[in-house]
């Protein structure tokens, strides 16, 4: 807790009462109020009354990391779980302490799996230090002492000390170098479906989100960006709002205009009245059609780099007795987080900048805020709020922080809350890339799959957001996922990648590259149908013994009752996918009405993530992946016309409603030995499982999404 935060809390408290706009940090306040707490190490803070606060570096957007990481720390610390809570690690302190908490990035289903080793060690180290401190106080060898349930016991004398009684002494000891972590079979706190810490505040309307921030004298900003990506501001005529109520300033930046007012509604109303001229640049004529043509041109490029080459595909295809080909495609998709992008920034008189935002990477937010402000990172704090949805939108792109800080910079001394309208949010995303893929399979005389050639045309997310991660041939692994690492044993494989970027910004949309699972697993279904083979038997025959994909596929076949009769009108589809460290197989049961309406009734999913830290949040993630994926399957697309996104709000970017939610049955089948994620696993197989079921129901092979664009009426 730095001095600025402490002062701020006092200011907030003093303002409470008459006008109920004081702002509280439900989590940070705990640490601030009681100075008696001891930091045993960066992750573990212990109070004299034995309460334990675990510092969490990753963000919380409902995926449960804020609780699951605390479970892992508490497991090794061996304390009373009822006394454990979490707080976010401060990005400012993180920078000052040489990145002591590791990565703050919260994407790629990495939150638990990439932190588990060091957070468990932090918990274990604290336990060892507490034990040594107690042993020192009793003047006995530490080996004679044991720690459990927040208590250290000296075996011979049965003397006991609570963690809270020795935390101060423990913190002064050297951290142990040799740490043995517990076997998962001995877990008592990890592995349990404990309730999430963040839920009570979320059902009582507590101000835990960035949009809820309230500060003394705070103003509000509404933003309009150039509707054509890449365009620039030419001029703004603000005469129409010169007498509008509550308006404080019009901020002009190179690619956006903001109105600052004493309420967000006033700011947004005034924004609509501005006369703004934009220079649309060279992209003003781009459309979905020109983008599709660009991608198809990519597929025709004879000199594409290869993401995978096994055997000799041209020779095998030439020798094949049958060649099956198909082209699949997907549209751009917005994340559409329920909380639009928002950032509150306050340039304080002492030269310090405070930022409150919904971020999937507090460290990245800090860096962008400091750069925009022209301040050293040590002079900036980012308060990480609970996210009203993330899905990849709020990680690598920090455009909202750049804007929020730029606006507040024009209002020094005054906190300003910048909030996008839904329309801005829908039309200024970092979209899941649109892509076109052609697959060609060669089958020998016995019907065996001997060759597969895949050509992928897809904008590169990495080129835009993480250029250093492109390989030297210019391959973006997120664009060729599911093909370059396909588990099926096909002796001849070639994957070509056409990077065609266009002007629409692309980004990490929940399970980046997941459209490739749709393509591959539907195409495999086409091959199974062509071979007159059961789709599960067909896949099993292509998977090596011992492949973890087999286990989940067999588990889901059993749990779903694959092969058993279904009610009239209900049909099944299956798909497998591995990604984000986990192995997933899914069966979807679907009915299609005579009018062509698709009803996904039941989804059975088996997931092997190696270990499971909180089975209930893992199940919730599977349910969430199914619903998130379902919207994209049924309804969602972002089209481009005149260089801009056509869809503007939830009336034309439709989200499924409660009655459309399938029954989701999640089988957690962790086999140990590796750590997989749950934030994205269950979305991968959904589109192909559903579309394979639609084929079973209608005989129509759907090769592009969403389904609303297909006439599925029964012939």
């Amino acid at each position, binding site marked *: 807790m730095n001095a600025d935060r402490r002062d701020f809390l006092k200011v907030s408290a003093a303002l409470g009462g008459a006008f109920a706009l004081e702002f509280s940090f439900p989590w940070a306040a705990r640490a601030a109020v009681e100075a008696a707490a001891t930091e045993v190490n960066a992750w573990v803070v212990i109070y004299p009354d034995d309460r334990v606060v675990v510092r969490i570096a990753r963000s919380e957007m409902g995926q449960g990391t804020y609780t699951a990481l605390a479970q892992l720390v508490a497991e090794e610390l061996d304390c009373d779980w009822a006394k454990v809570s979490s707080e976010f690690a401060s990005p400012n302190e993180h920078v000052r302490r040489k990145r002591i908490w590791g990565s703050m990035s919260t994407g790629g289903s990495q939150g638990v799996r990439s932190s588990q080793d060091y957070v468990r060690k932090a918990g274990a180290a604290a336990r060892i230090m507490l034990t040594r401190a107690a042993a020192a106080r009793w003047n006995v060898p530490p080996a004679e002492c044991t720690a459990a349930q927040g208590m250290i016991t000296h075996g011979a004398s049965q003397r006991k000390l609570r963690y809270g009684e020795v935390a101060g002494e423990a913190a002064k000891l050297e951290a142990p170098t040799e740490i043995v972590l517990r076997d998962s079979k001995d877990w008592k706190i990890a592995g349990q479906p404990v*309730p999430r810490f963040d839920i009570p505040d979320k*059902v009582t309307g507590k101000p835990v989100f960035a949009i809820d921030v*309230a500060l003394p004298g705070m103003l*509000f900003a509404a933003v309009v960006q150039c509707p054509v990506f890449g365009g620039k501001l030419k001029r703004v005529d603000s005469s129409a709002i010169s007498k509008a109520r509550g308006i404080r300033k019009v901020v002009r930046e190179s690619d956006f205009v903001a109105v600052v007012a004493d309420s967000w509604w006033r700011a947004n109303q005034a924004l609509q009245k501005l006369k703004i001229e934009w220079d649309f640049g060279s992209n003003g004529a781009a459309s979905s059609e020109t983008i599709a043509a660009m991608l198809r041109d990519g597929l025709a490029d004879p000199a594409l780099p290869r993401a995978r080459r096994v055997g000799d595909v041209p020779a095998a295809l030439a020798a094949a007795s049958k060649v099956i080909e198909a082209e699949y495609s997907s549209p751009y998709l917005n994340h559409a987080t329920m909380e639009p992008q928002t950032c509150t920034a306050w340039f304080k008189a002492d030269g310090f900048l405070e930022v409150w935002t919904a971020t999937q990477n507090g460290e990245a937010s800090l860096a962008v805020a400091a750069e925009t402000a022209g301040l050293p990172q040590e002079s900036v704090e980012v308060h990480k709020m*609970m996210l009203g949805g993330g899905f990849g939108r709020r990680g690598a792109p920090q455009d909202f922080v750049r804007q929020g800080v730029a606006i507040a910079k024009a209002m020094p001394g005054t906190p300003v809350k910048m909030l996008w309208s839904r329309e801005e949010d829908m039309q200024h995303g970092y979209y899941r890339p649109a892509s076109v893929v052609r697959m060609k399979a060669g089958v020998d005389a016995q019907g065996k799959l001997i060759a597969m050639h895949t050509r992928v045309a897809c904008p590169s997310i990495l080129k835009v957001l993480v250029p250093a991660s492109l390989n030297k041939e210019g391959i973006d692994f997120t664009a060729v996922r599911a093909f370059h690492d396909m588990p099926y044993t096909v002796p001849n494989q070639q994957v070509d990648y056409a990077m065609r970027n266009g002007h629409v910004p692309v980004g990490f949309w929940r399970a980046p590259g997941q459209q490739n699972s749709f393509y591959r697993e539907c195409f495999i279904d086409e091959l199974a149908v062509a071979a007159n083979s059961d789709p599960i038997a067909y896949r099993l025959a292509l998977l090596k013994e011992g492949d973890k994909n087999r286990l989940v596929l067999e588990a889901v076949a059993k749990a779903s009752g694959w092969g058993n009769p279904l009610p009239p009108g209900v049909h099944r589809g299956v798909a497998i996918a591995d990604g984000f460290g986990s192995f997933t197989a899914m069966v979807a049961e679907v009915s299609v009405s005579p009018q062509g309406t698709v009803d996904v009734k039941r989804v059975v999913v088996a997931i092997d993530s190696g270990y499971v830290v909180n089975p209930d949040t893992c199940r919730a993630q599977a349910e969430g992946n199914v619903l998130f994926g379902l919207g994209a399957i049924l309804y969602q697309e972002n089209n481009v016309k005149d260089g801009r996104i056509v869809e503007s709000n939830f*009336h034309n970017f439709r989200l499924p409603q409660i*009655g459309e939610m399938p029954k989701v049955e999640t089988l957690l089948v962790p086999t140990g030995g590796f750590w997989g994620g749950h934030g994205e696993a269950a979305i991968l197989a959904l589109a192909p499982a559903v579309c394979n079921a639609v084929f079973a129901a209608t005989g129509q092979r759907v090769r592009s999404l969403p389904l609303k664009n297909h006439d599925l009426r029964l012939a």
Partner: protein
Amino acid sequence: MFKLNVNGKVHQVDVETDMPLLWVLRDHIGLPGTKYGCGIAVCGACTVHVDGAAVRSCSVPVSAVVGKKVLTIEGLGQGGLHKLQASWIAQQVPQCGYCQSGMLMAAAALLKEKPRPTDADIDQAMTNLCRCGTYARVRAAIHAAADIADTATGVKRSAS
């Protein structure tokens, strides 16, 4: 100047006649539990009660609620937890949580009208949008709450 009765307290607000109730609640009265999601009455994140009925506050002008009783998520539990809030915790409903204030207010209005709603009643009444996929748990939590006797307060704030 409008006099508004929100959660049993009277607030004086000096705002335009056409300012939506949502923004009066959030920016002028300091009750941010009610959320902005779409501004066009589609998503339901801004759902509050006006005289007991669920309304989308983003599309209700402040002038329309003068003399009426407005209830927001902050007032739902009357100082404790509404049985739906307790059920939401027990079922671990929210993920990101952003839509949940609106979900709870819609569900509370539903239970008032139909104390034992069927699945079809829930489908019809609960048109709120959730991006995270909490729908199955929302349904389960409504059914579970419907089985609990009506006591607005006194429910212990812990999950079972």
